[in-house]
């Protein structure tokens, strides 16, 4: 293992150990609740980053798959007696795989276009999913929504199983993200982001690469949606597939640093609590929207590259200066590690 990956592994283990300890240290419902949403948005942002950050596609249909996962679990609930506690968690795995597979033909269709056209068409996916959720009321309950049985967990630690399940999901999606970025596959995605035509000319099988990233993104997003549905036990179309949630995911990714491993996680941890807090105090009102818009614009204009790349740049410059000042015989690389 190289020095860099070892440092990365230690960092990951540390972060996940802290996250694992959190619900046992803080047992207040509101804290674990907010932490659950933090994790959920981290999963969503890391998944979005696979296609939006690595490949540079503005993918606005992600939240449709969140809703799809939510409805898949809720509808399964209606027809299969899954009520026994932990079983739905495991049902998420086939649901995620199924959604990933279902998304492949859609990816093949959507990825015929790029850039702004792709963004528009992917937004259309979101709207179409919303229309279906509203109108197929035999299946989805329409505007009345769909309910599930209350999970039979101990009230005092009700959130804990959901939190831990979401943490597992985060570990899984981050592993995928890390593995993809390190592998040849990641290089291909970066090549696509740089100049897709040139990448194709150099023999990168651009379509395959994009479709795989796309399917992974959709699968994980769907699993997060299913878990969310089980947690809140009642889903409505306008919450399961909210355009504002979609853009919140993107904002988090940009804030943390798109195209990086930890950026989306950091962005989610910074913004998800704020989102929950403002939604609670401002109640989804006009003020909430204005605050959201202002924050969005601030990030776009003052931190367009995100926290992680900016800080990394700063540190690199700082170290270089330190190395120059020390001007010892040792190469700069030694000190960095």
């Amino acid at each position, binding site marked *: 293992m190289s020095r860099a990956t070892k440092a990365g592994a230690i960092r990951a283990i540390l972060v996940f150990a802290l996250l694992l300890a959190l619900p046992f240290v803080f047992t207040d419902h509101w804290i674990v609740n907010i932490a659950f949403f933090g994790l959920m948005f981290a999963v969503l942002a890391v998944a979005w980053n696979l296609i939006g950050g690595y490949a540079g596609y*503005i993918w606005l249909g992600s939240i449709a798959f969140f809703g799809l996962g939510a409805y898949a679990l809720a509808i399964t609930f209606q027809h299969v007696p899954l009520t026994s506690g932990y079983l739905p968690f495991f049902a998420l795995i086939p649901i995620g795989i199924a959604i990933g597979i279902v998304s492949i033909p859609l990816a093949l269709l959507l990825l*015929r276009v790029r850039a*702004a*056209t792709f963004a*528009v068409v992917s937004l259309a996916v979101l*709207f179409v999913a919303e229309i279906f959720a509203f109108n197929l009321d035999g299946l989805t309950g329409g505007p009345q929504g769909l309910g599930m049985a209350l999970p039979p967990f101990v009230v005092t630690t009700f959130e804990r199983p959901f939190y831990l399940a979401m943490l597992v999901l985060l570990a899984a999606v981050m592993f995928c993200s890390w593995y993809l970025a390190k592998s040849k596959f990641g290089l291909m995605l970066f090549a696509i982001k740089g100049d897709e035509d040139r990448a194709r000319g150099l023999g990168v099988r651009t379509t395959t690469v994009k479709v795989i990233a796309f399917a992974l993104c959709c699968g994980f997003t769907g699993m997060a949606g299913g878990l969310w549905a089980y947690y809140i036990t009642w889903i409505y179309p306008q919450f399961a597939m909210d355009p504002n949630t979609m853009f919140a995911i993107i904002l988090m990714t940009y804030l943390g640093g798109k195209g990086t491993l930890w950026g989306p996680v950091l962005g989610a941890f910074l913004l998800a609590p704020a989102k929950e807090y403002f939604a609670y105090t401002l109640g989804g009102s006009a003020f909430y*929207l*204005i605050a959201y818009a202002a924050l*969005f614009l601030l990030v*776009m204009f003052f931190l367009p590259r995100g926290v992680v790349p900016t800080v990394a740049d700063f540190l690199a410059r700082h170290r270089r200066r330190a190395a120059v000042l020390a001007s010892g015989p040792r190469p700069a690389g030694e000190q960095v590690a």
Partner: protein
Amino acid sequence: MHLLIYGCILGILLGGVYGLMASGLALVWGIMRVLNIAQAVCVILGSYLAFTAFTVLHVDPMLAVLPISVVMFVFGVGIYYAFLRPIRRDRESLSILVTYAIAIGIEGALGLIYTTSLQHTGTSYATQSFEVGGFQIPTVELYAFLISVAILGLLALMLQRTRLGRALRAATQNPTAARLLGVDIDRVSAVGFGIGISTAAAAGAVYGMIYSFNPNSHYDLIGILLAIVVLGGFGSMRGAIVAALILGVIASVVFIYWPLWANLSFFGVVVVVLLFRPQGLWGVPNWATQ
């Protein structure tokens, strides 16, 4: 059959209004490669301005169109300088996010001022209709259509005949060459964005006579407008207008038979476009845009 023809007539009337909204979107895209997600909320803003003019000042929305266009032109120019001009890198993608933020900001502001309850500009002729060859044509829809066509006509005339119009087209088709001939792309972009926003608001003023609206309505509307520009081909105003008419007719006919699914027809068309003609009906040839 009768119902089908009736659907087509209503579809064309509505399509004209959509055409006005979407042509601004196409114009802005053509000039500066900005996909203005806030276009729809500016339509709603126009609806509210006309609503206020009507309820407070008792001005007919059709008369209010002109002052609203002027005010919104200035508003659009301001938005361009404040939020769009600073985006230098990766404009195509970032502008989507930035204009989305602008959209929800305006939505929030509208919610503060007008609350979120549904409004409607109920003029005296709002419920009137007249009969032509056995078809009941609603008066407002006809007026809205006529006003939209008139504005589109003026816009076309301006683009074809004036110095500014030539500069706008030139900047769309070959920005570098336009710069070499002395066109200030920044200024032209600002003006173009102002025009785009003001057409949206003008369309909104008459739209508010036909439909009820609240600050949230822009979500449905932007889906429709984007479907129109995808079908018409990004950046082509003619494409946007033709696509608006086509989609207006399809949606109206679908509405008559399956009212719940009318909006889906917009996106169904997008899928067909993607499959068979990804550049849309009037996609500009590639070399022209480089």
